């Protein structure tokens, strides 16, 4: 089996123990979305405030394992202050890293990243791919954020 150290990298455990952007935002102006992993009961709540195509603020809540909590924390830190377009690039790069929906026009390079997006801390989640059951834990917050941002844009 792959080493647990590949899964539980120090940076992941740091985000798990000291989550960034955990909390709530007022709705409105923020939009709230809930994501569920029906397999394990994990739930994530994302609050996002979008103005002029920019993610001005983001908070997350809910309950989940170290991977889902760390992924939420890293994601929030990565996308805060970014444009919705940049978010889509992040999302694409992250999903490629998680080996989801490989894009034939844009095959993932061997280092696991697609496009020119720098995933930063999020790169630490690459080890999750070796534990297929846990991929959903890592992607739950991204699904939920996408849903929230779509709603925010539909509202504006």
């Amino acid at each position, binding site marked *: 089996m792959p080493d*647990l150290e590949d899964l*539980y990298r120090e940076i992941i455990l740091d985000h798990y123990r000291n989550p960034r952007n955990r909390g709530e935002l007022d709705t409105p102006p923020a939009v709230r979305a809930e994501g569920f992993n029906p397999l394990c*009961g*994990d739930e994530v709540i994302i609050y996002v405030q979008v103005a002029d195509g920019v993610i001005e603020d983001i908070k997350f809540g809910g309950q*989940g394992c*170290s*991977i889902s909590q760390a992924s939420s924390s890293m994601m929030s830190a990565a996308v805060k202050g970014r444009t919705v377009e940049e978010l889509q690039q992040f999302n694409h790069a992250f999903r490629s890293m998680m080996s989801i929906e490989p894009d034939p026009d844009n095959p993932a390079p061997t280092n696991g990243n697609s496009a020119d997006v720098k995933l930063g801390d999020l790169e630490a989640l690459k080890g999750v791919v070796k*534990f297929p059951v846990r991929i959903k834990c890592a992607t739950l917050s991204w699904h939920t954020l996408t849903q929230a941002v779509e709603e925010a844009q539909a509202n504006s």
Partner: protein
Amino acid sequence: MALDTAAVRADFPIMCREVHGRRLVYLDSAATSHKPRPVIDAVTDYYERFNSNVHRGSYQLAVEATEALEEARRKVANFIGADQDSEIVFAKNATEAINLVARTWGRANLGPGDPVVITELEHHANIVPWHMLAAEQGIELRWIPIRSDGHLDLTDLDRLLDGARLLSVAAVSNVLGTINPIRQLADAAHDAGALMMVDASQYTPHLPTDVKEMGADFVAFTGHKMCGPTGIGVLWAKPELLEAMPPFLGGGEMILNVTKEGFSTAAVPWKFEAGTPPIAEAVGLGAAVDYLTGLGMEQVREHEVALTGYALRTLNQRYGDDITIHGPTEPAERGGVLSFEYKGIHPHDVAQVLDRSGVCVRAGHHCAKPLMRVLGCAATSRASMYVYNDESDVDALADALGEADVFFIE
């Protein structure tokens, strides 16, 4: 006589395999049990020697296959103390058996405002079918609460049963292990004019089952948790109820006659078994019943009580306040299902660390989200034991649990 676990383990071929270079420590039998050699052989033998469709061919193979299916029904009937084989309806699993009751008896007999009473510790299989009837027919769903010790709180039982049409309860909780007072509940239901359904999925594999002693009107359970194959479950019901209930799925097998104008149904139990049934699976379940009967269900239960006591003592002594084990503390009041929380580490992470040592436990909500809400957690780790487990498995669990600290405790 106590169960000879070493001999039992030798009957289960999967026990020979290793996981990550370690011996398999399987503690997830509440999800599904392993299969002993006689069950695997019975399924293979069916396909190798008399595979054919049932209840229609006039040739020798079909006669033998039909006889094998009906023999399995007979074995199951004997195993649970049914009077007649025709009281046994084969379904896909316990979920389908409960849905069968909701879809047939429920649709025919329940209307707007009719109360159906369940409990907070039910599996989703005994919740969602009633939610569906609430949405479709406006039935009222009532909940018996649980106490902090994991037992049902029956203080308001009379009020909850007032006007009720059905009380449907798990005999053993798949999360807390609580053994519920089924006979008492059945008597109370009947006194209130309600019928009694028992979800025996976690009961029949572990304790001697007597449907008449339970006082039930319907009993549902599944084959794969009691050494049988997946894809076969059982609904037992009183004959007069089965006679009066409309059919479930429509198709072949379940008809007496079909014309352009309509159809008439076959006799009970075939009325409820549309299409080619899971024949090999039923044969396998028959072999599972023989296997468990050979071990002796009294011995199976005795082993469970002893091992549960050992597990509770071992985990509590080793980890003290760092571990919370849900459910009754007295082994005699519970099954061998231990849901626990350890040092606030998420169950997913606990299960991941345990897997490294070959220890298989379940992490999650165990298909009992309303109960999780009552317990105040989103998930638990769950270790559940069966006839092939012994003290060394509990020790392996206890040893491996501490390894989680390396990652999650600063």
